[in-house]
């Protein structure tokens, strides 16, 4: 059937902010769906408050609302737009749940909105673990023994029957949140209770443990005519027990015989039919007992998912795009496979390569949870690598994930046997490296034992042993051509071979090239070579035919940002994607390099060419060599490409825009300090220490508090504020290395200062300040974690003027051509420069959307020789630049105010203190826009999931220094109808100023104390400012409890102030929605 004509307008709900378990894969799938629907002539309305996304770029959808994903806002949008249909299956769990809510609230019926893509009944059936199991059993498939528990008692019943361990999983949560495995009697009831409380419907599935079984996934797609295909099969290298999102996975399935595979395939199709998914992609998960082959169904997701994004990239089959097309009535055989251009989508992709995905963890940022993985997802990103063999792909994937490993490597030699044993026998995130360590020592003989310990399939172990064997050969034998070829075909980088053999990298490269061992590139063609590929999507291998010709004509290579991590995520991919589009609009061919399968930039039709390759110098260099292209963009992919700039430049690449020495001026401490001096700008006092003693002397010299950090990091890893010598010593004892090679930077810490963020564009001469953003949290809380307000909400003209001038001078002096990001701090009305980043920052997409200017496109135009003045962005002549004609411009928010709020995935990590500091911890962000600050802030909070209370009791406990500042806020809360409770000191102070507050006991003052009250639900709002001390005992218990209860809490007075203004707005009970405006109309 062709596309439905009775539908004109379709509503899509995005997945909101990035959190663990729901990341940019939904931007990818959503963007694909929007594009597909628009191509078919539908009008598409999109709702997503995540400004970092590609999908919210004006012009992608017909109308974009960056409003909270909640029923009232959606109702308002629906009543305004009157869509004919809603497509709930592309916005992740959030989009699915919100669609169910809208249905339950009767809104879809009221406004006559049809649900397309999956029926409400089917969604319910798939999502309700209990009902799902019934259906599965009815069609003759096996499920784990289990009980759907509403109470602890239900769970105990099953335990009597099955025994421990038991797997505990709450219903309707994302990425397995709140799930766990109970091994001991002691923890069993605690874990069950936690799961029950996490579940929005207060129910959890308690289940027989299948730990150690093989785990598989099938990506299935079915159309309204009941045609169904498996797009991709995935095998988890890490067996059951580790969430698939945290497992190393490989496509296609490796260890199943055809019979076993067909059985699983049939089961997947039967499940789709039984559940009633009839127009879109779904994901079905299985466990298989290794010895008996018993197959058990784990779950299905009736929507596109992280795995479907992975599958799309691994196979070239665009699942989300097809799903959208099926939802409007097409059948699979009517959809052309765009990769070949001549086949249809009713086929199953055949791979002639292996795809390996490795998750990226940021567990060092969440210290309490380091030890073990489990049924709850904890990784924040992933890298995909393709290779002709598993080993090649595996080593490339390890390299791609950018954790400082060049490939599989042994753990440090000093690791104890106990530690190694522990890593093998628990679900440790470094387990595969422990396995490798053993295989390197003992060879294939260790396979049986390793199998007993890890349950990694022997096929995987044998292959990994082969990598170890090659490493051992490299160590001991001369580098013969065969050995070198073996190593390269098994994914060893030159750098890795160099580290093993002790030969120089250049030497190895030379040897290699002399012997004709150079990379060759193959098409990802969906059909294993059976048909010619029309879409140039490549991966590299060694010793084979090279299929790609050089790109002809004017072309540029864009280096993207690799796996998502905290501090470098979706924002950067959006930048790269938009740049690719902008270049193509300018008639320049774009070549994208990325290793992150979750992204839009790795969609096969975004760029003229796509390489799924590790973003490391060697692999990038090979691509450049092959393409023969000189121009490389490093400014948009975050720190990953920027860190490569110098090497690339030295090797002869033309870095587009800001040159390498300019980059160094900003990145190198010494050079930067000299620049500041020259421009007479102030930095916080800062020194470099190369020994422990020196650190102390520095600190004593400049006075506490001090901020300690290593150089060249993004996201502020292992930054620490020391308020005293004692604290300094604690930090230094924590496994910190200091040496000449690894110096530590010691900065004067500006306490209680305002922080500002500025993004600017410079063409070398004129400067466009895209926006001045002021943080709500004080300096000391990472800019990525702080709420930030555009424009500055509490500032003086003097400061704004100073910042504007400083930005212009710095940009010109450094020689920026393209993007520049500066963080300022203002203390006692004095301006300090905290940091200058000579690249596009995290806030570029936020500012682009808030101000209605496509900043990325402007940058590309600068790079194509069109200055800012010609672009119409800089109209005013800068009077403070006297020696030259310099024009400047400053961006403004379209609606009046825009607030960016950070979103955390803290609740993934039990008992984790959510207090913020100079290290970034947030995983995502949302935007709130409005005519008033209150409106914008209220919406940002709502979108971030922290709905502000409009009544109840506010608990106030503030540091002495904050008391004066908190007074008007508390008064305001009172006028807004809140009752006030406070700890003794705060209460006394308030009483002195005419406010009566109920006195609440601190933790050590007796019972019931503040924690008890929080638990009993007494408070609606918490204001707790532990100023000066970021880890005070007692305070952190409050915060932990607040996170558990999902209570609104603020830790600074400015945040409390912002909250009250938002509450005032909320009291008006208005729901105002504003579609995004495209000012210049230059978003395409």
């Amino acid at each position, binding site marked *: 059937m062709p596309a439905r004509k009775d539908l004109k307008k379709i509503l899509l709900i995005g997945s909101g902010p990035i959190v663990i378990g729901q990341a940019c894969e939904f931007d990818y799938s959503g963007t694909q769906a929007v594009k597909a629907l628009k191509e078919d002539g539908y009008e598409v309305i999109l709702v997503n408050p995540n400004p970092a996304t590609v999908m919210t770029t004006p012009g992608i959808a017909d109308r974009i609302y960056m409003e909270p994903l909640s029923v009232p806002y959606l109702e308002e949008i629906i009543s305004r737009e009157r869509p004919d249909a809603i497509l709930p299956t592309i916005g992740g769990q959030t989009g699915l749940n919100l669609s169910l809510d809208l249905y339950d609230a009767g809104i879809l019926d009221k406004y006559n909105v049809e649900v397309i893509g999956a029926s409400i009944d089917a969604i319910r059936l798939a999502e309700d673990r209990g009902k799902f199991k019934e259906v599965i059993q009815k069609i003759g498939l096996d499920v784990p023994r289990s009980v759907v528990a509403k109470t602890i008692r239900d769970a105990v019943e099953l335990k009597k029957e099955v025994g421990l361990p038991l797997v505990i999983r709450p219903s309707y949560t994302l990425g397995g949140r709140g799930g766990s495995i109970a091994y001991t009697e002691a923890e069993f009831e605690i874990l069950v209770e936690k799961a029950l409380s996490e579940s929005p419907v207060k129910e959890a599935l308690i289940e027989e443990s299948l730990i150690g079984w093989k785990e598989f996934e099938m990506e299935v797609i079915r159309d309204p005519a009941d045609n169904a295909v498996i797009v991709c099969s995935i095998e988890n290298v890490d067996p059951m027990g580790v969430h698939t999102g945290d497992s190393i996975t490989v496509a296609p399935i490796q260890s199943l*015989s055809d019979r076993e595979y067909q059985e699983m395939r049939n089961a997947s199709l039967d499940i789709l039919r039984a559940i009633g998914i009839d127009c879109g992609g779904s994901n079905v998960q299985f466990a298989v007992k290794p010895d008996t082959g018993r197959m058990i169904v784990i779950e299905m997701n009736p929507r596109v998912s992280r795995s479907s994004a992975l599958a799309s990239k691994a196979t070239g089959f665009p699942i989300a795009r097809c799903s959208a097309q099926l939802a409007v009535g097409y059948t699979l055989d009517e959809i052309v496979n765009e990769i070949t251009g001549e086949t249809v989508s009713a086929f199953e992709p055949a791979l002639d390569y292996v795809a390996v995905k490795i998750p990226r963890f940021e567990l060092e940022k969440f210290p309490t949870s380091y030890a073990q993985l489990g049924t709850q997802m904890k990784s924040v990103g992933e890298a995909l690598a393709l290779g002709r063999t598993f080993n090649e792909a595996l080593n490339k994937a390890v390299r791609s994930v950018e954790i400082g490993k060049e490939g599989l490597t042994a753990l440090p030699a000093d690791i104890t046997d106990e530690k190694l044993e522990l890593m093998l026998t628990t679900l440790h995130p470094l387990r595969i490296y422990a396995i490798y360590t053993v295989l390197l020592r003992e060879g294939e003989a260790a396979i049986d034992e390793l199998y007993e310990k890890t349950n990694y399939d022997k096929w995987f172990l*044998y292959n990994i042993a082969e990598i170890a064997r090659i490493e051992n050969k490299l160590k001991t034998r001369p580098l013969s051509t065969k050995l070198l070829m073996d190593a390269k075909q098994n994914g060893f980088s030159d750098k890795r071979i160099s580290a093993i053999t002790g030969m120089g990298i250049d030497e190895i490269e030379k040897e290699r090239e002399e012997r004709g061992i150079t990379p060759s590139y193959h098409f990802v063609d969906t059909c294993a070579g059976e048909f010619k590929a029309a879409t140039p999507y490549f991966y590299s291998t060694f010793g084979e035919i090279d299929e790609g010709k050089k790109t002809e004509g004017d072309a540029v290579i864009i280096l993207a940002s690799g796996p998502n991590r905290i501090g470098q995520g979706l924002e950067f991919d959006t930048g790269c994607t938009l740049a690719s589009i902008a270049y193509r609009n300018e008639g320049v061919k774009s070549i994208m390099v990325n290793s992150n399968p979750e992204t839009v930039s790795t969609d096969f039709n975004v760029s003229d060419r796509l390489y799924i390759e590790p973003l490391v110098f060697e692999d990038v260099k090979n691509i450049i060599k092959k393409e023969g292209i000189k121009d490389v963009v490093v400014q948009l992919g975050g720190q990953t490409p920027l860190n490569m700039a110098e090497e690339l430049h030295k090797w002869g690449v033309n870095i587009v825009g800001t040159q390498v020495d300019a980059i160094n001026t900003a990145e190198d401490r010494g050079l930067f300090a000299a620049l500041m001096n020259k421009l007479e700008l102030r930095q916080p006092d800062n020194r470099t220490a190369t020994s422990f003693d020196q650190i102390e002397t520095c600190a004593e010299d400049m006075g506490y508090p001090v901020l300690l950090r290593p150089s060249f990091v993004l996201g502020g890893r292992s930054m620490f504020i020391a308020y005293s010598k004692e604290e300094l010593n604690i930090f230094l004892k924590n496994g910190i290395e200091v040496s000449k090679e690894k110096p530590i930077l010691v900065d004067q810490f500006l306490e209680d200062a305002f922080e500002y963020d500025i993004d600017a564009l410079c063409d070398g001469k004129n400067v466009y300040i895209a926006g001045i953003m002021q943080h709500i949290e004080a300096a000391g809380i990472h800019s990525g974690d702080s709420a930030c307000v555009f424009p500055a909400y509490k500032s003086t003209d003097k400061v704004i003027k100073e910042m504007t001038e400083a930005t212009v001078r710095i940009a010109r002096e450094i020689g920026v051509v393209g993007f520049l990001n500066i963080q300022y701090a203002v203390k006692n009305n004095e301006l300090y420069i905290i940091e200058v980043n000579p690249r596009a920052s995290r806030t570029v997409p936020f500012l682009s959307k808030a101000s209605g200017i496509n900043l990325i496109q402007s940058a590309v135009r600068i790079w194509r020789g069109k200055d800012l003045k010609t672009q119409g962005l800089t109209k005013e002549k800068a009077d403070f630049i006297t020696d030259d004609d310099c024009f400047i411009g400053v961006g403004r928010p379209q609606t009046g105010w825009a607030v960016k709020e950070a979103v955390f995935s803290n609740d993934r990590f039990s008992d984790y203190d959510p207090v913020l500091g100079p290290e970034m911890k947030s995983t995502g962000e949302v935007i709130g826009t409005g005519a008033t600050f209150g409106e914008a802030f209220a919406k940002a909070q709502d979108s971030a999931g922290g709905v502000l209370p409009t009544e109840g009791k506010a608990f106030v406990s503030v540091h002495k220094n904050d008391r004066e500042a908190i007074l008007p806020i508390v008064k305001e809360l009172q006028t807004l109808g809140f009752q006030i409770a406070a700890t003794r000191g705060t209460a006394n102070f308030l009483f002195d100023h005419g406010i009566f507050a109920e006195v609440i006991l601190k933790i050590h003052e007796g019972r019931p104390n503040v924690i008890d009250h929080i638990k009993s639900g007494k408070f609606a709002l918490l204001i707790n400012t532990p100023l000066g001390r970021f880890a005070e005992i007692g305070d952190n218990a409050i915060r932990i409890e607040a996170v558990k209860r999902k209570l609104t809490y603020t830790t600074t007075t400015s945040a409390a102030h912002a909250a009250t203004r938002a509450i005032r707005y909320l009291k008006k009970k208005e729901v105002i929605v504003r579609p995004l405006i495209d000012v210049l109309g230059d978003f395409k």
Partner: protein
Amino acid sequence: MQEHCYLVLDDGNIFQGYSFGALPPRTHELEEFGIKRKGAGEVVFNTGMSGYHEILTDPSYTGQIVTMTYPHAGNYGSDNSWSEIGPEKGRNLPGIKLAGMVVKKLYRGPVPEGRMTLDRFMRDNDTPGITGIDTRRLTLHIRDNGSPKGLIVRPSDSSSTVLTEADLEAVKRFIKTIPDMEGQNLIKEVGSEQQEIINPEGKIKMAVVDCGIKANIIRELTARGCRVLLFPGTASSDEILKSGPDGILIANGPGDPAVLEKQIEMIKNLIGEKPLFGICLGHQLISQALGGKTYKMKFGHHGLNHPVRDMRTGRVFVTSQNHGFAVDTDTLPSNVEARFINANDKSQEGIVCDDLNILTAQFHPEAAPGPVDSSWIFDDFVEYAAKNKD
């Protein structure tokens, strides 16, 4: 021990790799070796990502060297119970019919208990394989130029790993003697020699003409309550009809369908007498008996992912395929309907003729390996046959 060996194509392309399975001949052994037809044949590729064992044992691959496009092979071992060679009894030539297997990377590690390695299985069944070559290059070559003839071979000198000029001369000479697939009658090399009854308790009598039948076709029939009367490919129509079948299935087999005049003539006598079904070669033979013509495809369909549209229902299903020849629909009489069409290249995939009770499939509804989405066609076969029971 990994022995160097080579795959040499008739167009002069040479691929160097390592041997697995049975050792391929040395160049000086070629003459004597030639009769066995192992290691020499038409080179095709199969895009299935699993099922190497079934492919290996499929009699339709007689005289063909199969390149697996999926790089890893042997991952889960081999198991005799998966073999597609057909019934144990009544075979004139047991073992693997396929001439050789080409893979990118053979797995040589431990396999699940009770199974043997692929290497071992091929060695036991006297079939050579070559691993460690660029199968992508080979596949693209076949795609662009059609299926070449090729030979898996070792140098004459056992102490050498390279093919000398003399070796190459011998190889070239030998390759010239490999007959073209077009025009080849391979039926005598496969299939039963005598009549046989399988599942005697079955209620529906299905006569099956075995030109190299896959075991799973028989399994599918017996699972549906058929009493299978297996006839050799050389059986006469009288013999078959005399057995009083409810339906007759002409099964799959190797070689060029156009030269099987005897079988085509025989089938002409069956048309209209009893419901007639065909799979793969069977489909091609029935089509020819109806007056149609077959042609050789450039590189054929060999894989597990081919979409086929049923023109009667509009449904599309994923099928397992293995054929190098196809039927030209335009040559068929007008009462014959091209019921199945390949959704990718639009080639014909099966016919139906209601007046004559004929239903055929070019694809493999019995799968093995591959998806079983089209196994309903066996239901139709059996239903047709049951309806015609007297």
